[in-house]
């Protein structure tokens, strides 16, 4: 072997070994879970789509707060993306499907609200950087006044320059319409928190008469409750005759509206089976709306999640902050 060849091999080996060290430097930093969105050619069309097999599942631990204090749970999280859309899949154990949300029940004489809330999952991203969100997560947007309880806490950022994008999947109030509620987070004021609905229409409508004593609407002829449980606003008619109801009949109290505009960006597909929820949330990478985070696949994003098991806002399971990155 010539001297030139030997020298070339030595130089190559030195450069390769140096490159290994450089590569190793990239893993520096504290342990923080990362969800890597896998690139897929065609968008997943359902919960069992083979596209999900391309994504690496991350088991995200959650810790309970308030009535769930001391309890733990986990959400298996996956993400894939196409040229223009991003898709998340969340699986978590929940033995009971909770979609009651104060639904009406007739006892033969009067109507009353049933006990029970709904299951939910919410995900918070940054639209404009929220100070210390990357290290502290949702803790920096939850403000509980001194001496008050979590129920009195306000959810919002500390300055108008900080903006969050809050995806809120609600088993009773948004999922039956096939969406997650698209909201955003801005500065809290002294009077109220900083949660805002995205531009457009959406949310839900309370099904009750003016005196709040009974439901006002029932399914329109030929219309059935979505997913077998919940009435949509678009599928109801006003009740003209209450005599047709019999004891044990139930009617939805919080009826989801079909969202429009920026509020309709996040679509949802769900299933409760085998003692747990499986939920897909998906939307465009960049909706072009100011109240949405624009996902750039070359960039990393911080996000944190909260899980609600038939509970109100203060009773939740919270995750630590995570990183979302996009595989090439």
């Amino acid at each position, binding site marked *: 072997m010539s001297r030139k060849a030997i020298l070339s091999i030595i130089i190559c080996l030195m450069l390769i070994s*140096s490159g290994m*060290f450089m590569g190793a430097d990239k893993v520096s930093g504290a342990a923080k879970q990362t969800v890597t969105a896998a690139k897929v050619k065609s968008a997943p069309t359902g919960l069992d789509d083979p596209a999900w097999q391309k994504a690496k599942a991350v088991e995200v631990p959650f810790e309970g707060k308030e009535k769930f204090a001391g309890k733990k749970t986990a959400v298996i999280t996956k993400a894939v993306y196409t040229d223009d859309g991003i898709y998340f899949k969340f699986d978590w154990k929940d033995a009971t499907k909770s979609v009651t949300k104060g639904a009406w029940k007739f006892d033969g004489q009067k109507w009353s609200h049933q006990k029970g809330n709904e299951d939910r999952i919410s995900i918070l991203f940054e639209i404009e*950087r929220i*100070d*210390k969100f990357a290290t*502290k997560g949702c803790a920096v947007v939850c403000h509980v006044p001194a001496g008050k309880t979590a129920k009195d806490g306000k959810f919002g950022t500390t300055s108008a320059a900080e903006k969050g994008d809050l995806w809120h999947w609600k088993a009773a109030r948004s999922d039956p319409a096939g969406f997650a509620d698209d909201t955003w987070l801005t500065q809290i004021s002294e009077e109220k928190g900083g949660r805002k609905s995205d531009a457009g229409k959406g949310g839900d409508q309370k099904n009750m008469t003016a005196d709040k004593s009974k439901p006002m609407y029932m399914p329109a002829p030929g219309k059935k409750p979505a997913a077998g449980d919940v009435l949509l606003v678009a599928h109801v008619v006003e009740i003209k005759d209450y005599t047709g109801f019999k004891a044990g009949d139930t009617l939805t109290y919080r009826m989801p509206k079909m969202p429009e505009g920026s509020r309709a960006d996040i679509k949802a597909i769900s299933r409760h089976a085998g003692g747990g929820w499986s939920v897909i949330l998906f939307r465009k990478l960049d909706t072009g709306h100011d109240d949405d985070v624009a996902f750039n696949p*070359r960039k990393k994003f911080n996000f944190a999640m909260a899980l609600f098991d038939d509970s109100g806002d203060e009773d939740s399971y919270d995750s630590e902050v995570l990183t979302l990155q996009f595989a090439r």
Partner: protein
Amino acid sequence: MDTLSEMLAMGDMMDRVKALRVPADALTWHRFSGSLLLVLLVLLFLSGAFMAFYYSPAPGAAYDSVDFALYTVPFGDVIRGVHYYGWNIFLIVLGLHLVRAFIVGAYKTPRQLMWVSGILTLLLIPALIITGDLLPWDQNGFWTTQVRISIIASVPVVGDFIVRLIQGGPLTGIVALTRFYVLHILFLPTLLIILIVIHFHFLKVRGLSEPLFKKDSRSKNISFFPQLVNRWLLLFLGVTLVLGVISWYWPAPLGDPADPTDSTFVPRPEWWVLFLNQLVTVFKGSLTVIGSVIIPGGLVVLLLALPFLDTSPDRHPARRKKVLLVAVVVAIILLGLSIMSYVEHFNGNHP
């Protein structure tokens, strides 16, 4: 071209450049590290200037300005990648350049000061990397700087003074960031250019070292312009392309925004500082100064003094076995320390 040079009254200078002859092996496949360093330096200055257009040296804005330059400006992350990988490769190539000069005895008379200027340049690069690391104001840069500052502070007598000088106070805040920025884009590059000019001055006056193996090659000459310049431009294009592709597929990391209240973040040493980190780990407490000052300082003095210690005229490695043996032993120790540090920091044994 001639008309333009006449208009600019640069005719004489152009004639001198055209008449300049350089050895044919001034830029060949086996002697290219010097030219490659010049290519990398130009790329570093260009990519650095691009980032300076968007950068805001204040803790509340620095991270967002870098984020904007990376992800909003077209190809911003590629240009930052060129800067990031450029420094690392610059350090590697400069090391190889000096290793080659050492092996072929290019530091010997009459090129002693070329060697000294090269070593001083090598010492300047870490200063540029250290000041540059803090600028994005991300977690890794911030906490790595804290570790480095604590090591500097451990230096007896002058440690605290140096820390206050570069940081402007006891904490790493807006004054520190401003000083690091000014050092990184103004003072240190100026010093680097001065050292390179000195290096080139000696290169022109003393010439390239004679090849050890091909005695006849030095008789061949080529023109500086356009032959050597064209070779250099070809190298420039090639390196730019390679760095651009690397940066496109493996973007330079930008961590989370710095959070000075987050004491859970554990920075890990970069590849080029692993052995120093291990020295500081080995020598603890009152002995820290041995690992942080005496041994590294001794090595620097040894490198600077090498041309004046090894004064024999022999350049061939076969006739300089003692010097080479000492160098190999030192290199093995440094490599061993680096491996120990790597294992400790990257295999989870480090707190």
